[in-house]
């Protein structure tokens, strides 16, 4: 069932959310960048913005995440997991990012389930804002993760001008709307059809785009990408790891203990499969010592049929962040395009 809320009433709703938990929204910082940040008042929220380069996955999977406390107690060690039970609302998150968080949650739910991650995710309510005008570098239509969502949100907002259409996708979404009953009214037929029209218009923005995923997937899954091509492409990678850091679906991490006199905190940290020692073994052997092998692995994980079958989607939500962040030139569309054509930059 869809609702609608008047534009002016949003403030009151946000006020209510602020009373019930931490609200995170895109905010313009002093240097002009939009960053997802904790807000303390509703006016801070940006409504017309390009999706921030730094993704909101940090609110389910922080770059540095304390997961276990270890304390020395005489001869023994006490070990206690740490959980973050803060109730959070992720407000005005874009469709691709909502889809990304759903992807991460599927990974961390797999056995053995990751309690630390899941506690955070379960406490997070995702209130997404559909993209009436898709961002210039995005290609979410190719990955089925936008510009409007069918799933993966708790609440989806669509800007209808005077009002917002409010779609509820889960119990958490229902809860987010509760307590302020007179702010929301059942959506009129007109409002619902406006939303449909906007979705079609948004999709039409992608007209020129060609989607290479299917043909690239065939080649990658069957090992038909020449080694020489990987080698050539990997010379255009500077191993910065940025692609992994900003990728809404990248979830690899490493762990390291942070020592504090007599007590330690085991932290998980974002890691990058593009770093040389990512797969380094204690013996000194490194199964992916060369950049081209690491790059090949990354794209196999993202785009192969094998993983598509397991995950139900490619490991990409089309946000286009890797295009902006790539210090080299080997972002997702560039590599996928090159694989389809069988050549790089010629």
């Amino acid at each position, binding site marked *: 069932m869809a609702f609608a809320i008047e534009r002016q009433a949003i403030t009151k709703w946000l006020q209510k959310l602020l009373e019930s938990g931490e609200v*995170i929204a895109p905010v313009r*910082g*002093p*240097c*002009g*960048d939009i*960053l997802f*940040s*904790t807000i303390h008042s509703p006016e801070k929220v940006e409504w017309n913005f390009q999706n921030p*380069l*730094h993704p909101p996955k*940090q609110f389910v999977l*922080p*770059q*540095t995440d304390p997961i276990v406390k270890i304390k020395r107690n005489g001869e023994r060690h006490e070990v206690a997991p740490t959980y973050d039970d803060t109730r959070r609302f992720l407000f005005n998150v874009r469709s691709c990012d909502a889809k990304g968080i759903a992807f991460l949650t599927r990974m961390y739910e797999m056995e053995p389930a990751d309690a630390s991650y899941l506690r955070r995710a379960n406490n997070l309510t995702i209130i997404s804002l559909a993209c009436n005008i898709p961002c210039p570098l995005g290609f979410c239509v190719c990955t089925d993760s936008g510009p409007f969502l069918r799933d993966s949100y708790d609440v989806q907002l669509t800007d209808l001008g005077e009002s917002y259409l409010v779609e509820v996708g889960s119990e958490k979404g229902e809860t987010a709307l509760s307590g302020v009953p007179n702010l929301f009214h059942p959506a009129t037929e007109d409002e619902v059809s406006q939303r449909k029209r906007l979705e079609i218009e948004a999709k039409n923005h992608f007209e020129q785009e060609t989607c290479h995923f299917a043909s690239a997937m065939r080649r990658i899954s069957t090992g038909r990408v020449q080694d020489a091509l990987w080698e050539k492409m990997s*010379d*255009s990678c*500077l*191993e*910065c*790891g*940025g692609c992994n*850091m*900003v990728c809404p679906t990248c979830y690899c991490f*490493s762990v*390291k203990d*942070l020592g504090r006199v007599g007590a330690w905190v085991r932290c998980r*940290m*974002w*890691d*990058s499969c593009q*770093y*040389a*020692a990512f797969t*380094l073994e204690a013996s*000194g052997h490194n199964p992916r010592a060369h950049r081209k092998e690491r790059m090949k692995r990354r794209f196999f994980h993202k785009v192969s049929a094998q993983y598509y079958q397991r995950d139900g989607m490619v490991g990409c939500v089309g946000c286009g962040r890797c295009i*902006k*962040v*790539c*210090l*080299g*030139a080997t972002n997702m569309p560039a590599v996928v395009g090159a694989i389809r054509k069988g050549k790089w*930059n010629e």
Partner: protein
Amino acid sequence: MSAVPSTCPFCSCGCGFYLLTNNGQLVGVAPSETHPVSSGRLCARGWSAHEAALWGDRLRQPLLRQNGKPESVSWDEALDHIAGRLKALIDAGKPVGVLGSPRATNEENYLAGKLARAGLQTNNVDFSYHSICGPLFAGLEEVCGEHTPTTSLNDIASSQTILLIEGNLAETHPRAASSVMKAVEKGAHLVTIGYRITQMARLSSLHLQTTPGNEREAINGLLAAILDLRRQDRTSVAVRGEGYEALWRDVKSVKRTEELRQAAEWIARAERATFLLACTGGQGDQPQKDAAAFATLAAITGHLDRPGSGLLPLLARSNVRGACDMGVIPERLPGYDPLDDERARQRLQDLWGKKLPSDHGWGAENLLQSVSGLIVVADDPPSVVRMGRRAMAAMGRIEFLVVLDAFVTPTVRIAHAVLPIANFAETEGTLTNMEGRVQRLRTATNPPGEARIGWQVLAELCARFDVGNSYTSATDVLCEIAQAAPRYAGIEQRLSEGGWGGALLKDSDNAKFVVHPTGATGAAALAFAGRPHVLACDGAFDWGRDPLVLFSPTLSRDYQSERKFFPNGFVEMCERDVDALNLGGQRHVRLTSVHGDAVVPIRVRTDLKPGVLSVPYAFRDHVASVLGSDSVTAVNVEPP
């Protein structure tokens, strides 16, 4: 979660990012699309910048070594003790000195310099200047009258031709490499000069593979080919400048290959060309001459001062440029003015209210071996100077060694007095990148324990030597810097304008170039019958031993693993050379040079040509007896 805009503390590209904190603790880094240098991109080091600050082995209390053991003391006790000991040494006529650091801010370096010259009355003040940029700057100054860059990182991307003396740009300056890649993608011609086939060399249109120490052969070849072009076609090839007849005499007999002719065309006919220069290796003043010849190449083709064109010296660490500008070099005062420049001396004497010493000071390596009292600010000399661990032995003989640092380093472990200071994420201050862009560090979190802000500690030491000033903020220090180094005038105001607010230093107006003869080709005579191979020390800096990398779990994994597997270091050589040695399964070789010999493990590489051996800067200690004080030397290689 809060986001504090700051500047990357690693290389001198000067990328910007947000330091993310949660409840006052650093938790990560977020890129910035609005930053003028990095525009949303960072390299691996930048992405992990918060880690060392978090994981680092930190100093929390002032320590004084008493009865051979470091004991915590109060700040006043430590500072008084340090001042007392240093005064006693000076009174006894013993030499003292100060080492600044490219890991320290401008404010810290400036006060370190002031403490040395005005406070301790000595010009014994330096950082790893000589190994990192000294020859480079000297060469540029010879030709351009200035050591400063004439182009920016962003301009590289729109160049049509890029000439790169390759020290492994992708590793040393990823942000610069990124711009080169962008240009190449748009069809630019990249010409690389170097002895190794690096990543950038593979991306190039043309790689001029040299012998280590003999880069000048390629540069002279290019000079000759360009002068040929001019002789053929006076009108369309811009060759300018006085004195190139002498240049012609020097290079006319150099052999021109088809490749050199092609590269010369690309350079001479490009509207926008970038010249990227890393420190080369070699004996004596050869690296300086290489830099001069390279600058000449840019100068005579008109690319030195044309909009969109220019030369960029590649400086290894974040604040090399700043340390130079602050005068943390024995023969240069703040503003990079020569020590004997009377006007500059007067300016500083007026500002500091002290007469300045005029005796020449020692450079870092001599200083380490000669002083009785030494203050080291935020650096670990054995890791950074070329003499490597011999610096450790030298420091062990110093009567009174004081270290200011945020991290525990080998130098800290042997110091007599240790003052804990804030790291880059805990302090206010500025860094000057290789382009001359002055950018802010901002406080994202508090220093641990009793650690204090570095510039405040140095200001207190200055006060104890009667050159104090009542600074209330880092900005106050920056305002004084503007008086000491005129190029920094107005910077403070521009930095306060909000946003990223980096400010480029003004170009000085005396940048006119002089064409010099380049001298005969460098090291052609280096290798000879008894020693047919050449051993080169690769690079000018080792990130692996920098605390910012060493203490970062993510970064140290990449940088440290080789060290674990090769505790005795290694030299690299090509397969053909290894086969020719008939080592019979042995993985070691004996190297002999005029200086001495050493037995070292080998590693086979595909990016070296026969006859060339290379040792990473990190492993220079293991061949110190072979290299002597050279960075390139002829060797004989045999089974151990």
